[in-house]
C-alpha cells in the first residue's frame, strides 16, 4: 500500500481539500473517492454503475475529464487533483448540473423517427452505413467531451460534440425519417459550423469515440443537402 496525497476542489471554501489515502494496485479514482467519503462524509460526488456504462461519475482528474470508475490511480504519482467538470455549473463538490449538456442533446431530437414511407427493417450486417452509425453509438453521455471542448464548455451556444455525434448516428441511418429536419437543426447557429477542430472531444472520450469526425461528417452532409 502507498500513501497518496489527494486534493479535491470543494464548493464550500471551508471544507477540507487535502487528504491522504492508502492505495494499492489496482485502485480506481472512484475507489479513492469512496475511501475519502468514509473520512469526510460531506464529500459529494456521483456514480452509479461502476463499469463505465452510465456516465455519471465523470470528473476531472489532474485536469483531464475522465470516468472516475475507469481511471486507475498511478502509484508513485506526486498526488491527485480532483475537480468537477469544467463548463457546467457546480451543484456541490464534484457534482455538476448537466442541464446545458442535456438541453443541447435534446435539441437535436436524439430519438429514432421511422420513415413513414418504408417498412421497418433491420440493417444488414454489411450495410455500408453501419460503419458511420456504429462509430458513434457507444456514447454514454458522460459529458467528458463537453468539458474538453473549448467552445461547448465556455459558451453554451454550441450544441457540443455529444449531441452532434448523436445526430450523426441517426442521420447516417437510411431508415431515419427525420434526416432532413435533423440536418437543418445541426446547421443552425451553434451547430456544426461552430466546431473549430480543436479535437478536445476526441482526445477525451472515455469510450474511444471520435466526435470531431462525426461533426465533420455531419457538416459535409449538411452542405450536400444544401443547408
Amino acid at each position, binding site marked *: 500500500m502507498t500513501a497518496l496525497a489527494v486534493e479535491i476542489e470543494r464548493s464550500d471554501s471551508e471544507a477540507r481539500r487535502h487528504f491522504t489515502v492508502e492505495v494499492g494496485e489496482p485502485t480506481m479514482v472512484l475507489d479513492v473517492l469512496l475511501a475519502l467519503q468514509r473520512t469526510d462524509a460531506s464529500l459529494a460526488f456521483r456514480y452509479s454503475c461502476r463499469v463505465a456504462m452510465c456516465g455519471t461519475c465523470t470528473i476531472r482528474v489532474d485536469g483531464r475529464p475522465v470516468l472516475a470508475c475507469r481511471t486507475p490511480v498511478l502509484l508513485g504519482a506526486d498526488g491527485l487533483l480532483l475537480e468537477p467538470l469544467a463548463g457546467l455549473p457546480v451543484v456541490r463538490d464534484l457534482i455538476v448540473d448537466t442541464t446545458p449538456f442535456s438541453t443541447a442533446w435534446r435539441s437535436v431530437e436524439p430519438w429514432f423517427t421511422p420513415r413513414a414511407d418504408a417498412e421497418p427493417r433491420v440493417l444488414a450486417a454489411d450495410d455500408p452505413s453501419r460503419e458511420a452509425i456504429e462509430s458513434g453509438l457507444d456514447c454514454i453521455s458522460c459529458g467528458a467531451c463537453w468539458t474538453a471542448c473549448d467552445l461547448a464548455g465556455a459558451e453554451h451556444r454550441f450544441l457540443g460534440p455529444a449531441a452532434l455525434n448523436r445526430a450523426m448516428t441517426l442521420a447516417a441511418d437510411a431508415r431515419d425519417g427525420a434526416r432532413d429536419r435533423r440536418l437543418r437543426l445541426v446547421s443552425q447557429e451553434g451547430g456544426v459550423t461552430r466546431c473549430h477542430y480543436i479535437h478536445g472531444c476526441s482526445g477525451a472520450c472515455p469510450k474511444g469515440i471520435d466526435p470531431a469526425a462525426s461533426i*465533420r461528417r455531419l457538416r459535409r452532409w449538411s452542405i450536400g443537402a444544401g443547408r
Partner: protein
Amino acid sequence: MSALQVVFVAALTALLLGVVLFSAFTVRAALVVRPTTARGSWLVRIGRASNRDVQRWAFVAHRATGVAVFAFLLLHVFDVALFTLSPARFDDVHELYGTAPMRVFECLLFFAILFHTFNGLRLVLLDVAEIRLSTARRLLHVAVALTAVAGTAASVVILKPVVA
C-alpha cells in the same frame, strides 16, 4: 536611427507584445479549464501533454501564429505603402529588414507562416476527406516536421549574411 525607423520599431514592438499577450491568454485559457495531463507549473503541464492533447495544442498554436502573421501583415502593408509616398522613405525603413534582430524575427515569422500553412492544409484535408483520429494526429506530426525542415532551411538562408 531615423525617425521613421523608430516609428517602425515601436510599432513592431507593440505588435509583438500584443501577439505574446494573446498567445499567453490562449495558452492560459487552454490550461485553466481544459484537459492537461499533470499538475505543476504551466510549463510542466505543457511538457507532459500526451499524444491525446496534441491537436488541442495545434489549435492553440494555429491561433497564435494566425494572429501573429495577420498582425505583421498589417504593419507590412503600411511599410510597403511608404513607397507610394517616397522611395527614399521606403528604403529607409526597409534597411531595418537587413539587421540581425530583424532577421531573427523574420525566421520566427517564417516558422509561424509555415506552421499555419501546413496545419491549415491539414484542417482542409480533414474537412473534405474521411480521416481517422490517428491519421489526423499523424498528419499533424507531418505538418510539424515540414515546418521544422523548411523553417530551418529558410533560417539558414536568412541568417547567413549576418552570421558570415
